[in-house]
């Protein structure tokens, strides 16, 4: 007999997607749209209406986190943010230590709005610094410079309890020593959280088109990328910011609670164009996907439902998703929970083989990827999935 799926271990979060940007970055494959200006009033109301609709479907929960992502959520007016948070507060009980994060561009225009976000209830920001080198910021298509980013970071630290920032590395022409130096500077700056992403060239981006034409030169080889990754683990751990996930670093207790909801495969509601959600009702897990195009989503949400689809996630798919998400964490996945979802995912023989190869290990019922395993996680997961 299967037991009810224990989503509670992962918590319950709300994701809000703000799809607008001032410019499209050449590496970005997120659902973002460049527009001159947006009348935010109807958007705020539509997002709030969507939250209330979900509250009817998933009532009586305790909300552990809210995350404003995008796009560029720091283009939202503080009033818009306040409306959305207010709708969430009216829909679910807030946990005492609820984490409310907003992604922000590290620019002076946005920093001027930080106070307003804090008043609206935001208590954590994640700044898209991306690089501490001017030339590379230009190549990444960013509109800020290093000084401006550092200033914005300073303001954020004064205004919010918790501040994280992102860097992109393994960039064009970057060598191991360049990165060591830049990461050193970043670790001097960092306080409680740091996201370090290796540049990946995704379909649908300007970088992808350039790469297809052979015009994206100087990207690191697999081996250099691996060396950079290993160096990153070493330096961050040494600075008290170990990796708790493939690309995320924090001292214990400072992890992004919202993102842990995904990786621990909890329940989350997604509102806004293209947002995805997963939530359990009566022991059935649903996947929701909202209309991707802002011009389609808004009237749909205004008419009462912004979703493109809502489907049941079969047990085996849940197991696969849990594995995909959970093995990214250094704490790994709960084997019992995983096998409770499906016995065919992660069969013992494959676990044994990958353990012998030094890619996986099991400690107190948690199946974890070793550092080597995490570096080749896509292949590890491919092996574990039937």
């Amino acid at each position, binding site marked *: 007999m299967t037991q009810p799926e224990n989503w509670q271990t992962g918590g319950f979060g709300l*994701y809000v997607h703000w799809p607008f940007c001032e410019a499209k970055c050449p590496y970005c494959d997120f659902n973002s749209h460049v527009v001159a200006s947006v009348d935010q009033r109807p958007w705020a109301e539509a997002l709030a209406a969507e939250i209330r609709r979900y509250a009817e479907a998933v009532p009586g929960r305790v909300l552990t986190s809210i995350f404003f992502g995008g796009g560029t959520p720091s283009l939202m007016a503080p009033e818009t943010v306040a409306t959305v948070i207010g709708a969430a507060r009216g829909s679910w009980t807030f946990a005492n230590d609820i984490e409310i994060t907003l992604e922000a561009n590290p620019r002076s225009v946005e920093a001027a709005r930080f106070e307003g976000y804090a008043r609206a209830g935001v208590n954590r920001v994640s700044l898209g610094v991306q690089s501490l080198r001017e030339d590379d910021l230009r190549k990444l298509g960013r509109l800020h410079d290093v000084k401006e980013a550092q200033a914005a970071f300073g303001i954020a630290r004064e205004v919010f309890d918790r501040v994280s920032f992102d860097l992109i590395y393994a960039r064009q022409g970057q060598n191991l020593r360049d990165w060591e130096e830049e990461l050193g500077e970043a670790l001097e700056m960092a306080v409680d959280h740091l996201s370090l992403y290796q540049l990946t060239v995704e379909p649908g981006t300007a970088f992808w088109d350039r790469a297809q034409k052979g015009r994206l030169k100087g990207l690191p080889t*697999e081996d250099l990328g691996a060396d950079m990754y290993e160096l990153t683990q070493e330096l961050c751990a040494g600075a008290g910011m170990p990796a708790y996930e493939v690309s995320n670093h924090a001292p214990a207790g400072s992890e992004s609670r919202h993102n842990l909801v995904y990786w621990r495969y909890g329940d989350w509601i997604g509102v806004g164009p293209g947002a*995805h959600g997963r939530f359990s009702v009566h022991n059935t897990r649903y996947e929701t996907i909202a209309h991707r195009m802002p011009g389609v989503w808004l009237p749909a949400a205004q008419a009462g439902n912004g979703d493109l689809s809502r489907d049941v996630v079969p047990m085996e798919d849940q197991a696969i*998703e849990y594995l995909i998400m959970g093995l990214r964490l250094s704490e790994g996945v709960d084997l019992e929970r995983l096998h409770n979802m499906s016995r065919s995912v992660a069969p013992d023989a494959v676990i044994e083989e990958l353990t012998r190869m030094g890619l996986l290990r099991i400690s107190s019922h948690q199946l974890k990827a070793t550092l080597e395993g995490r570096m*080749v996680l896509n292949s590890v*997961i491919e092996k574990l999935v039937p």
Partner: protein
Amino acid sequence: MSTPQHLIRNFSIVAHIDHGKSTLADRLIQLTGTVAERDMKAQLLDAMDIERERGITIKANTVRIDYPAKDGNTYVLNLIDTPGHVDFAYEVSRSMRAVEGSLLVVDASQGVEAQTLANVYTAIEADHEIVPVLNKVDLPAAEPERVAEQIEDVIGIDASNACLISAKTGIGIPDVLEAIVTRLPAPPEKDANAPLKAMLIDSWYDPYLGVVVLIRVMEGTIRKGDNIRMMRTGGKYGVDKLGVFRPQMQDVAELGPGEIGFFTGSIKQVRDTRVGDTITTEKKGAETPLPGFKPSIPVVFCGLFPVDANDFEDMRDAIEKLALNDASFTYEMETSAALGFGFRCGFLGLLHLEVIRDRLEREYDIDLITTAPSVIYHLYMKDGERRDLHNPADMPDLTYVDHVEEPRIKATIMVPDEYLGDVLKLCQDRRGIQLDLTYVGGRAMAVYDLPLNEVVFDFYDRLKSVTKGYASFDYQLEGYREDNLVKMQILVNDEPVDALSMMVHRDRAEMRGRAMCEKLKDLIPRHMFKIPIQAAIGGKVIARETLSAMRKDVTAKCYGGDATRKKKLLEKQKAGKKKMRQFGKVEIPQEAFISALKMDN
């Protein structure tokens, strides 16, 4: 009534890819009103996709054109489009023997190129009258004088009165038609009442008519209703349908000396017809066949296996269908420990192999693994027995083998002087023995005795590459000779991969083994563990490479919205793996099998 012989002109067009052969053919057809304007499709004569893509003609095509000339007579012009590759050298030579003249089409800006040369020499050998035609003279880069000079220098024919044309715009086409009539000879006068001798130029399968046979009547007359006999194969058939191509089929009652046309006669398989055979009537037939017939013998062999074992039955059907239409292609079933069920197939050469493989993959949608091409070795066993070895995998233990003989060829290579050094080095690297080296009008002609197994795979590609395409190459089989030949095995992760086994000369084994291992190291994707790749002779490792373990394969960002996408990506990756074959724990991509064999230098 058949056409009076003095009003017939039979010709072919010799040209390099893209120099405008098909466009010119289309213009000739169009200008003479052979095809109504509205039925005109670009490039009427090229039938197969593969031919069009590769710019080569594999099957001979033909068209008959009526042309009212300035002298007041209406002439019958027969154009035969000939194959253009050394693999089909014999087919080309037969097509050339079926006509008396050639148009040599050269791009007026590009000049003479290698492929043109090989065919123009075949035309000269067939005693053709040749009319040079300079195409694309309307382009700014055109240099007709320089190119005409080059034709005289390189080929040694008079190009002073070459036709200057633009096949695209139609400039000069009437001159070409006049030149065909005034400068090309009529077929030699032969007796229409003599016993029939018609040469089989080509044949192909038509789903409605059965096999269609393209013929050139040399002597006598063929009539609808005749009972005919193929003099070499002995097959007997009734002529059900007799006709000409305009380019669509048009029935005629008879074909006399000098005429080109087709017949059908309930022939079920193309295999029953052989290019170069002589057709005569069953009663009062000719006594001796036309000279020059050679049965086509496959010289290159390889195994073809479906990537997905479930495709085997489909593959069998596809191969049977292809074989019906191609007498020079042979096949028999083969099983391999690693690859399962497949076929051992024989081909005229490597291009032929690639064409057949492409057609199987494209027309029948079957993904294939091609094993190392091989030739037929003669094994002389210690007990006195002689065996033919088609497949290196079948090589018996050396303790039972007294000696091995391999097929040799006589290769003739013509090349501009400046590339000669590279060509000689290539021949030497391939164990060639120089037989002759002479100069013909600024071009060197090297004649080499070469082992066929050194040539079958990528010799022609290498030759083209070291001479920038300026070499022409022809060869004929010269019999067998003993040499120190051994079977080299390739082991991937300590497992022998049969499909990569090959026969090599002992002295070249280390070099080849090293090259193979290096290539495979690049072709096999990294796995989660390191993989030794070795070449071995009889258990002794002669070369080794190690493919290091994969070090990084992880998605940088994966958040709530990515779960669905990652799951789909995973499914796609799994499907992609099905295109690879598993050898032990290692997945080898399909293209690795053929790429590993190519030698870059």
